[in-house]
Structure formats: structure tokens, C-alpha cells
């Protein structure tokens, strides 16, 4: 099933629905339909964006006007942004978030590619077991791991380090990476690999020189999905860190302070939220088709 869904880089299944042409022959009905679709689009657009826009609005408000309930700030200020970028609390967390997510992503794509290649191309016993294992991990309740990992990490001394977060992120993103990548790998023209092997390349060389470049689009997609996953994590980030050393942005938001001990830093939190959402939105806009292809292939296709 769903082979279509994973055609790498191509459009999503719905995009090529033949039904549209059939319906295109009724102009009067089409106008109503067009209006209807536009209304539906607007509704979806609004529901998807409003919560984010409210945060954007709060982030530009002054402390005195934060309670005015108005969607467009009455008094605009950049103070919230200046505030968070002026503190190592946030900048350091941003660095941690980027570093940890990037390293995890690279590792997940490398390890995931190896395993996905084997799954897509090679016959070996234990393959089904591996796929089952990956599925099990994808479903794993993360809270179940928090206490043992916390205890283990502090015993071996990697509590509150980058590596202490990278390892669990890697674990939970590997199933995603393996699914997505093996879906992509199945679509690669394998004749090339065979040709390379005929030319005397070992299977490993064939993988590295011929298949890997062809697999690059799939790897980019996987990388984006894994990055979003790591960027998003909160439970591990608050459980396995305790200083600026390795605290990521979602966890650091809880450390923001307002004008006094009891004051809530609503403006700062909103500004930080906007800042960490921007890269994701850029990714989404740039790689929209790939993300859709990757998400669906990873899950439906398997």
C-alpha cells in the first residue's frame, strides 16, 4: 500500500487527483464550489494561525498593555526581544537547542540510513524483528524512561550534558528515520547499484558512491522531521538537564523572570516562543512537499 505516498520529492497523493478535471465542466456549480473552497481555506487558515498570532501580538506588547486584550498591540515594543537576547539564559539555551538537535539529526540520519538500506535492500534474518522493535520504540511512553535514565545518567556522569539529551533523542528519532528512509530507499533505481557491483564495487561501496547521493532527498526530508522532533522535546529536556550547560529552549522558558519574583514574564515567554517557532516555519514553507511525503511514508507505508 501507499507506495504512491512516498514517491520522494514528488507531490503528495492528493495533488494528482484525477477527479478535478471531471468536475471542471460545470461552470455555474464551479463558481459556488470555488467560493466554498475559499471560505473553507480561510477558516482553516484562521484556526491554524490564530494561536500563533496571539503570541506574536503579546510579544510586541509593553508590560502595561499586556492585559488590554487587543489583537493589535496598542503600544509596540521590541523590549521583550531585546530582553531575551540580552540574557545568556535564552541565548545559551538557543545554542543548546540548535546544537543538540543538529547533532541528533545527523546521527539519526546516518544510523537510520544504514539500517534503512539494509531493510530496503538486503535479505537477512531478524529484519522483521527489527521493524517491530522500531515500531515499539516509536510508541514508547517516554515518561517510563525518565526515572531510569535520570538515575543512570547521574551515575555515569552524563546528567545535564549534551550527550545526555542526544542519546534519548537519537533513540526516539531512529524509528522515524528508519521508516521514512526505507520508504525512500525503496524507490531508488537499484539497477545502478547492481551496475556498480558488476563494475567491481563491494555492496558497501555501491551504497556509499551510488545510492547515497540518490538518497539525499530522502535524507533531507528525514533530517527535517527528526530536527522538528528534537526541537520539540520537553519532557527529556526538563528531566535530564539542570543548568545552562545543556538546557534547551522549551525547558528554559520556565526560567524566565518577570519584573519581580512573582511577576510572570508573559512578554518574554511570548517573544521566545516566536523566536523558536520561526525556524520551523521557514522549514515548513521551504520543504512543505518533502515533509508531507516524509510524514506519510513513515507512517502509512512503513
Amino acid at each position, binding site marked *: 500500500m501507499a*507506495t504512491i505516498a512516498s514517491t520522494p520529492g514528488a507531490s503528495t497523493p492528493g495533488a494528482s487527483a484525477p477527479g478535478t478535471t471531471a468536475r471542471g465542466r460545470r461552470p455555474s456549480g464551479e463558481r459556488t464550489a470555488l467560493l466554498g*473552497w475559499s471560505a473553507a481555506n480561510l477558516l482553516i487558515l484562521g*484556526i491554524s494561525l490564530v494561536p500563533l498570532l496571539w503570541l506574536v501580538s503579546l510579544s510586541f506588547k509593553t508590560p502595561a498593555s499586556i492585559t488590554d486584550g487587543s489583537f493589535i498591540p496598542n503600544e509596540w515594543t521590541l523590549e521583550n526581544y531585546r530582553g531575551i537576547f540580552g540574557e545568556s539564559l535564552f541565548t545559551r539555551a538557543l545554542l543548546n537547542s540548535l546544537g543538540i538537535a543538529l547533532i541528533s539529526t545527523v546521527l539519526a540520519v546516518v544510523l537510520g540510513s544504514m539500517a534503512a538500506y539494509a531493510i530496503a535492500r538486503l535479505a537477512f534474518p531478524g529484519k522483521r524483528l*527489527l521493524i517491530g522493535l*522500531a515500531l515499539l520504540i516509536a*510508541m514508547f511512553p517516554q515518561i517510563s524512561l525518565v526515572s531510569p535514565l535520570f538515575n543512570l545518567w547521574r551515575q555515569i556522569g552524563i546528567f545535564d550534558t549534551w550527550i545526555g539529551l542526544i542519546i534519548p533523542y537519537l533513540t526516539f528519532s531512529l524509528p522515524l528515520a528508519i521508516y521514512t528512509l526505507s520508504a525512500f530507499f525503496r524507490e531508488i533505481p537499484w539497477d545502478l547499484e547492481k551496475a556498480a557491483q558488476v563494475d567491481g564495487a563491494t555492496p558497501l561501496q555501491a551504497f556509499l558512491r551510488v545510492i547515497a547521493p540518490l538518497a539525499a532527498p530522502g535524507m533531507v526530508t528525514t533530517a527535517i522531521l527528526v530536527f522538528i522532533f528534537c526541537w520539540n522535546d520537553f519532557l527529556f529536556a526538563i528531566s535530564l538537564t539542570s543548568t545552562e550547560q545543556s538546557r534547551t529552549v522549551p525547558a528554559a522558558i520556565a526560567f524566565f523572570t518577570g519584573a519581580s519574583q512573582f511577576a510572570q514574564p508573559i512578554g518574554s515567554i511570548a517573544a521566545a516562543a516566536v523566536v523558536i517557532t520561526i525556524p520551523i516555519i521557514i522549514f515548513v514553507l521551504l520543504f512543505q512537499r518533502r515533509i508531507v511525503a516524509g510524514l506519510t511514508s513513515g507512517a502509512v507505508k512503513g
Partner: protein
Amino acid sequence: MRRRSEPETQTAGEAMANAGEPTNADERTNGPAPANRRRAPLSAGARAERRLGWALCAPAVIVILAVTAYPIGYAVYLSLRRYDLRFPDDSKFVGLANYATVLTSSLWWQALAVTVIITVISVAIQFVLGMALALTMHRALVGRGLIRTVILIPYGIVTVVAAFGWRYAWTPDTGYLSGLFGDATPLSSQVWGIAVIILAEVWKTTPFMALLLLAGLALVPEELLRAAKVDGATAWQRFTRVMLPLMKPAILVALLFRVLDAFRIFDSIYVLTAGAYDTRSVSILGYDNLFTALNLGVGSSLSVLIFLVVALVAFIFVKGFGTAAPGGEGRR
């Protein structure tokens, strides 16, 4: 894939293969053949392939096992001990006492009920909305690409950030939604708190559901729908009699993913209510007992119980509903 286990899948697969993807169809029919051929005499090449397969998978498997299998075993061990982080020297074996503590506590059952309610309601809503969105994207005359891009934004937004957005929206003074449904502070009552949590969950993950269902919709051959229409089937009949059965595998996988993901809900509750007013999920309860009460023994037994519940749900889906495990059997 899954041909042996699932008749519908077979239809879907066949229909799809006919739907015009010759390359894939070829690859698919040719695919298993060499594997079968290889199986008979284990040639040197096959042994090499075997070794390479294991070697390539080994790093991933080692990482996965190191971070899950060992810790879950360790959690089981901790759950059988009295272990207060403040007094590690008093740690000792207590058998199943921690489980008795948890299972006789109304807090556990309440958290479990809340988690189940959140899971069932949010996944049900997600399914309906997701299906509507998928059909919209499948059929839309205009703005298909736009919708697809826009609905990815909730998916991409960090859950904690989204939850803060909702928290401020529903809080009097800083929000625009509070009082919308008559209750001035929805986040301070159980029913409304859970409703807001479900809303946040639905908003965040409906896009994912929609995309999975969209992929499933692609399995429905257009000819079949047209034929049904010629035979006089209404739109609703075409949807329930033709589309849904053909999409069943995709639907079940999507539901399995979403149910198990919703079951471990943590981030949005932590931000929205922090579990106050009996809105805590099992994950929140586990976290509080681990990190606020510092009780690793009881906390670990909660962890193990949550794991068992999730495993049970997955088992029911796979065995009871015949959900084919994604990436499972069949495929070479």
C-alpha cells in the same frame, strides 16, 4: 506488503498497482523473487549480504536497546524497591508494595481515566476533522497547496509554545478566549480544563492525522468511485462503502499512532494546568512523583504501569483490529 494478512490491503495494493505506477509495480513484483531464490543455498554472497545487513543495523539497534530495554529493566528493578532520592541509604527491596500503593490510590485511577478520556475524545475529533481536511485537500479546487502548507504550521510549532499560546488565550486579563463558554477561568475546573487540553491537542495534531488519511485516500482508485457513482451510489454511500473500506489499513495505522501518542500526553498539560484540578494525565502523575516527591520507587512503578497499558493498547490494535504493524511483514 501485508498481502497475506489483510484482504482489504490486498485489494488496495492491487488497485493501487493498477492505478498507474508501473515502476513501483515492477519493483514490487520483482522484489521478493530474488530473496526467495537466495534462500535455498546459502551462497557466499548471501552470507556476506547477511553480515552486511546485521552490521548496518547494529548501531541503530544498539542505541535503541541501550536507551530503552536496559532502562525499562532498571525501572522494573527500581519499582520493587523503596527508594527516596533524599535518603538513598534507606533503599531496600519491598516487593510489590509500590504497585499496591499506586493501584490502591484514587489518584492513579483518576489520572488513568483522565488520560483515557483525553485520548479517546481527542483522537475521535482528530479523526473526523482530519478526514474532512484530507478530503478537502484531496478534492479542493483552489488553494490546495496553501492549505497543505498552513496546516503544517501547527505540526511544526513546539508543543510547549503552542500550549503557552492557549494558556494565555484562556486566562482572564491576558486572553481573548476566556469567558467564551461561560466559565471565566476554564483552566481551573476539571471539565473545562480537560476540554482546553483536548482542544490544544486537536489543534496541534489534526494536521498529522489529515496527512496520514490523505495518503490513505490515494489508495482509493478513482475508477471505482466513478463506477459506484454510475451505479447510483450517493456521495455518502461512496464514502462509507467504497472509500472507508479501502482506507481501513491506513485509518487503523493512523489511529494506532495517534492513540498511543495521545496517551503519553505531557507537555501541554504541564503548561496549561500543571495537573491541577484533577486534570493530570498518567505522565504528569509519574513526573510529579518522580521529581517533586523524589520517590523513585513509586515513580518507577508508575512508569512500568504506563508502559504496560501502552503495550496492551498496541496489542489490542494489532491483534484485535488487525492493524498491520507499519513496516511489518511481507515487504522484502
